[in-house]
């Protein structure tokens, strides 16, 4: 058995949910949380920052002149710079705060989409996408009279740059592609894909929702035009998403939502909008939540994203190996580099029955289509059980999972 380095065990104490939870009432076992891809648990430092934001600087940002509002504004804008540094962006004015990855994608589909997609153009997505990076483009294509082109995965669900290359042409105005799959964990070679896209003048939009908690990300190295992700999947609070865009391009985009905070002046018939990033941030943002995201970024960087990636790779490999030993269990998805998200089916047992039976033992996993119907259709699979890990998970937890799966298989068959 491969033991995790001791300090990773110690990290568990940073997450109050991991010791607090019981599964069902009366059950005193601690929670085994294997659903980090849905939302990650939050370390105490994030919750502390959230509380102090709500108590010491509970004010609206950008407009107040009193201490709390100035402090909130300073911290809020400080997190913008932290995010820029986290993803190695050249500047922080191109970091836009949204509600989540889903809203980031919708913003782009409307604002960018209306600008660059004309009737007859093509918008390229892939079968690997989460619905949040699929439906906005489907809708854009429909509303603009453009064609939605879908790059195909192979029978294992693998997406190769080659599959993208086949569909790219000068008609391809936009390419939306995930950095890592929320079903199979597959890590996509975004760098090569963006290089290919550039050759056709195609603008690239990358869905980083499953990447930013797991590996160092450099938008400069990836060479993408836009990169979107969610705070709640990277140890941060709910209600905050990020849209990063190349400043030169972002600056050219019109506003999408309008309202307070995004205008320079308002007249009865027309209005002047602010420059980036504020033009895209209409209304009161999730002030305290954005501030608390700063603590999540510090926490991740404190461990180091390369260190996290290395530890999670150990966990992922070991988990896959042990799952394979469960009778009747079949892993779904390709071999190769990935984030610690693993899908499988258990022969003769429906994924939801597996998940419910695991839940009864205090093990939280997800079952179903994981908001990725096109991928399941392409793989010819009706649904999967998904185990998604983080560096706080342990091999002991995986052992408990596997022995539970053995028992569940026997029970239902």
């Amino acid at each position: 058995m491969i033991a995790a380095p001791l300090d990773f065990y110690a990290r568990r104490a940073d997450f109050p949910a991991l010791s607090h939870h019981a599964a069902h009432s009366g059950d005193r076992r601690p929670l085994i949380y294997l659903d980090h891809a849905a939302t990650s648990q939050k370390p105490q430092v994030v919750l502390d920052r959230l509380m102090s934001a709500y108590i010491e600087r509970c004010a609206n940002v950008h407009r107040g002149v009193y201490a709390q509002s100035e402090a909130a504004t300073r911290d809020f804008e400080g997190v913008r710079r932290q995010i820029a540094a986290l993803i190695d962006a050249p500047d922080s004015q191109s970091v836009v705060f949204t509600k989540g990855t889903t809203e980031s994608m919708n913003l782009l589909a409307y604002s960018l989409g209306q600008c660059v997609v004309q009737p007859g153009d093509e918008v390229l997505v892939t079968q690997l996408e989460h619905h949040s990076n699929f439906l906005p483009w489907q809708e854009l294509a429909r509303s603009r009279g453009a064609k939605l082109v879908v790059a195909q995965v192979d029978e294992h669900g693998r997406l190769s740059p080659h599959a993208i290359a086949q569909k790219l042409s000068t008609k391809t105005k936009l390419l939306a592609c995930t950095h890592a799959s929320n079903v199979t964990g597959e890590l996509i070679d975004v760098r090569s894909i963006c290089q290919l896209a550039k050759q056709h003048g195609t603008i690239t939009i990358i869905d980083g929702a499953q990447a930013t908690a797991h590996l160092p990300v450099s938008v400069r190295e990836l060479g993408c035009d836009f990169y979107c992700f969610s705070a709640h999947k990277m140890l941060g609070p709910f209600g905050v998403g990020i849209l990063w865009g190349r400043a030169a391009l972002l600056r050219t985009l019109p506003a999408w939502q309008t309202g307070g905070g995004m205008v320079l002046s308002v007249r009865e018939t027309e209005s002047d909008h602010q420059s980036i990033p504020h033009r895209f941030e209409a209304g009161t943002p999730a002030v305290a939540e954005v501030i608390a995201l700063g603590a999540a970024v510090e926490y991740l960087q404190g461990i180091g994203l390369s260190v996290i990636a290395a530890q999670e790779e150990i966990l992922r490999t070991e988990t896959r190996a042990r799952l394979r030993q469960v009778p009747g269990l079949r892993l779904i998805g390709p071999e190769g580099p990935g984030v610690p998200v693993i899908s499988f089916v258990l022969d003769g047992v429906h994924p939801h029955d597996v998940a419910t039976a695991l839940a009864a033992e205090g093990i939280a996993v997800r079952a179903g289509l994981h908001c990725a119907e096109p991928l399941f259709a392409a793989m010819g699979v009706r649904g999967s059980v998904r185990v998604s890990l983080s560096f706080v998970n342990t091999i002991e937890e995986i052992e408990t999972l596997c022995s539970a799966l053995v028992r569940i298989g026997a029970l239902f068959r």
Partner: protein
Amino acid sequence: MNEALAKLYQEVILTHHRKPHHFGPLPDATQQVRLVNPLCGDEVTIAVRIDQDTIAACHFDGYGCALCRASASLLTLSVRGQSLEAVRALGHTLLTFLQADPASQTPEGIGDLIALCGVREHPSRRRCATLPWEALLTIVDDATE
């Protein structure tokens, strides 16, 4: 297996799941309805042959979890030979029961269907058990309109 789970997956349920009754197409069906559960993408088709306001035959088909399969299998057994009126009453009684508070009383006349009661403690799985009945009630409501 802990208590809550044992109540959900009672032996009756597991038996019907492993060997469901009347599973597969009903060749001489007069009506059929297919419903999808958006949570999991599962689907169930209920097919019946109605003869003089009576359900002469009932089959189910599709892809679903143990709860859905068992519920559908139990359904086919409990409606066969029953009048549309009786089936409609039974369906509504059962749906109300399954959607009620776990502490609520068991209604009379549901027979073996009582085995489905565990879903009341698992709100995210309730629909699995109710889906076949929703499909059936759509047919019955249409047929008696």
